[in-house]
């Protein structure tokens, strides 16, 4: 449809543009400006140029938080997608029991993050948690799941996977149920094994679903905060200090507004890069 006047679409876009300007672009500009100052909200802000970025790099905090976030996110995305897809394939059939299992798996996704974190705080207790007791029963020494820097990030990742697998399951189920039966039957008539049918028919059809699940899970795991706040507070030894928690810590606990802003800006850039990458992948898969 061609607008009667060339500038009409722009008028119509104004409310959305205004919203974006006030709530996204202006705060982003403010963030960029604040990141150039040394400020504790009490004394006068002092212009320090790029010193906040340099300090974050010098202390290793930026790389360490970024690395922790990326590592946990990769594990969360891959594991939750693999588990979600496996469960979807196993549960893509009629029956009351199957429906019950589907609901049970998805129910974890509906729980609040804080409840899940508190639950796992007890389950992962190094002395009386169910995992520690299993280790003891087998005569092994239980690792300190949340108290050992080598285990804590993976414990956090595992809790997140448990929580969001239901989300991947539902989306993959929808994808599987959209797969045309006629194509699968044709493949079967041609003598394709179940594995070959999955690789050559189901999996290509599930590509857009996979991309969507991967993107949304990645963004969700990048925004991980509650589970870290409740279970480890970024410790031990900053091993679970993901970017969002590190920003919170800089701002609210260490009272450094400039460094928190610098870290937040890096976070925005990383998320932006990931989103652009996802868009590129999406368009390529559509082409």
């Amino acid at each position, binding site marked *: 449809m061609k607008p009667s006047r060339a500038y009409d679409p722009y008028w119509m876009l104004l409310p959305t543009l205004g919203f974006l300007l006030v709530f996204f672009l202006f705060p982003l500009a403010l963030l960029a400006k604040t990141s150039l100052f040394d400020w*504790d*909200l*009490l*004394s006068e802000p002092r212009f320090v140029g790029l010193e906040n970025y340099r300090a974050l790099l010098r202390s290793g905090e930026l790389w360490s938080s970024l690395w922790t976030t990326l590592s946990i996110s990769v594990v969360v995305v891959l594991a939750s997608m693999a588990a979600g897809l496996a469960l979807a394939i196993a549960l893509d059939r009629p029956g009351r029991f199957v429906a019950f299992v589907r609901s049970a798996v998805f129910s974890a996704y509906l729980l609040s993050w804080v409840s899940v974190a508190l639950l796992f705080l007890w389950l992962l207790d190094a*002395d009386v948690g169910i995992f520690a007791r299993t280790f003891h029963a087998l005569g092994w020494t239980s690792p300190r799941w949340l108290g*050992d820097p*080598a285990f804590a990030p993976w414990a956090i990742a595992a809790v997140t996977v448990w929580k969001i697998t239901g989300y991947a399951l539902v989306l993959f189920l929808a994808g599987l149920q959209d797969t045309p039966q006629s194509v699968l039957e044709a493949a079967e008539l041609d003598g394709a094994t179940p594995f070959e049918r999955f690789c050559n028919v189901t999996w290509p059809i599930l590509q857009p679903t996979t991309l969507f699940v991967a993107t949304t899970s990645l963004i969700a795991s990048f925004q991980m905060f509650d589970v870290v706040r*409740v279970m480890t507070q970024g410790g*031990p*030894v900053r091993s679970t200090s993901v970017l969002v928690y590190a920003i919170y810590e800089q701002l609210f606990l260490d009272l450094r507004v400039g460094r928190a802003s610098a870290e937040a800006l890096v976070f925005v850039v990383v998320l932006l890069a990931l989103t652009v990458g996802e868009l590129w992948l999406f368009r390529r898969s559509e082409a």
Partner: protein
Amino acid sequence: MPRPLPRREFLATAAAALGPFGCERAADRSQTQVALWFSYGGRNREVLEGLVRRYNAVQAQDRVQAVFQGDYFEGLAKLRIALAAGTPPSLTHVVSEVVPYLENAGVLEPLAPYEGASTLDVLPAFRQEQAFRGAPPGLCALPFNRSTPIAYLNRSLFDRAQLEPPRTWAEVRDVARAFTRRGGESRHGFGCPIDWWFWVALVEQAGGSVVEPDGRISLGDEAGVAALEFWQGLARERLMKVPTGRDYNAWEQINQDFLAGRVAMIWSTTAFVRYLEDNARFPVRAAPLPAGVRRAVPTGGTHWVIPKAASAPEKAAAWRFLRFMLEPPQVVDWATSTGYIPVTQAAVNALSERGYYRVHPNDAVALEQLTVASPWPWSIRLFRVAREIVQPRLERVVFAGADARRELAEARALCATEFA
């Protein structure tokens, strides 16, 4: 289908519903409203709110409204944001380490000119000039919930084993070993949050000082290393339960481990005396912290402060409330309901005269420890040193087995460059 409420009828109903609040607001206009921001949770919160209700009931001039603001650090963050926004509370309380920082920023109301400030009978260890080494003259903070770290013992276990509270570091190790059990019903002999406050206690006990009299941040030099290696050894042998989590989450977790019988002895704050006594299924015994080469403890807890930016009537009202809170009945009620140290001499005398400490010996432990309490240095950077430089390294040594000497040397070097 329900009949839609006509607009006039709706407004009349709304006005009737809001009427009582309107009347109350009209009555409140004659009172000075005092916004009190506090950070006490659980039982301590109930006690404070009870004292606030008492104040509001016994006088009509002011109305104090107590608002919970999260833990100490969250409360401090909100205070800074409120100060920056120009909407500070009339009164709040902050931890010792940040008093010099706030005073240096010029946001605290000087309290010395207020009526009765010079005659407050605060215990010597809690007077500003003695609570802080090198404090400038003047008064900007008043003590209320003050504490020291103490040891809590599961008396059933200790009586059965016929063991006494440890008086030295070596005895701590022996006791921890005696009570530690491995396997299904595992138990640790000792538990302590890996937290700056307890490490400072160990440094002082080892004969050191975190900040030297000349202002150099030494982190205790050799004493700091000895303190950290003491912890590291206990954790490595799994004699010490090291709670996961940081800040007050770790404190709460070690409390729960103690209450559940999973740890025979913990170090925590005297603020939990009543809470642990009331919730343990075994008798709880409190004991002083052991000596290294000497006995020593830091003090903890918070100080009342009045933001300078609050309005003059609010500040005057806040001061009246503070005077009330420092009267013996309030100090006594606060201390006996929580476990915090009574901060005025009159309150201590009142409790001693009525034989309170004979009946409740656990409450006397922290009070007695005041004789060996070390003042905090008046340093505007101490809380940054604690949070940003020392705390992560304490964790690295205890949780990840890093070398204590190297970590503290690195921390000292960072203090010298970052805070030169």
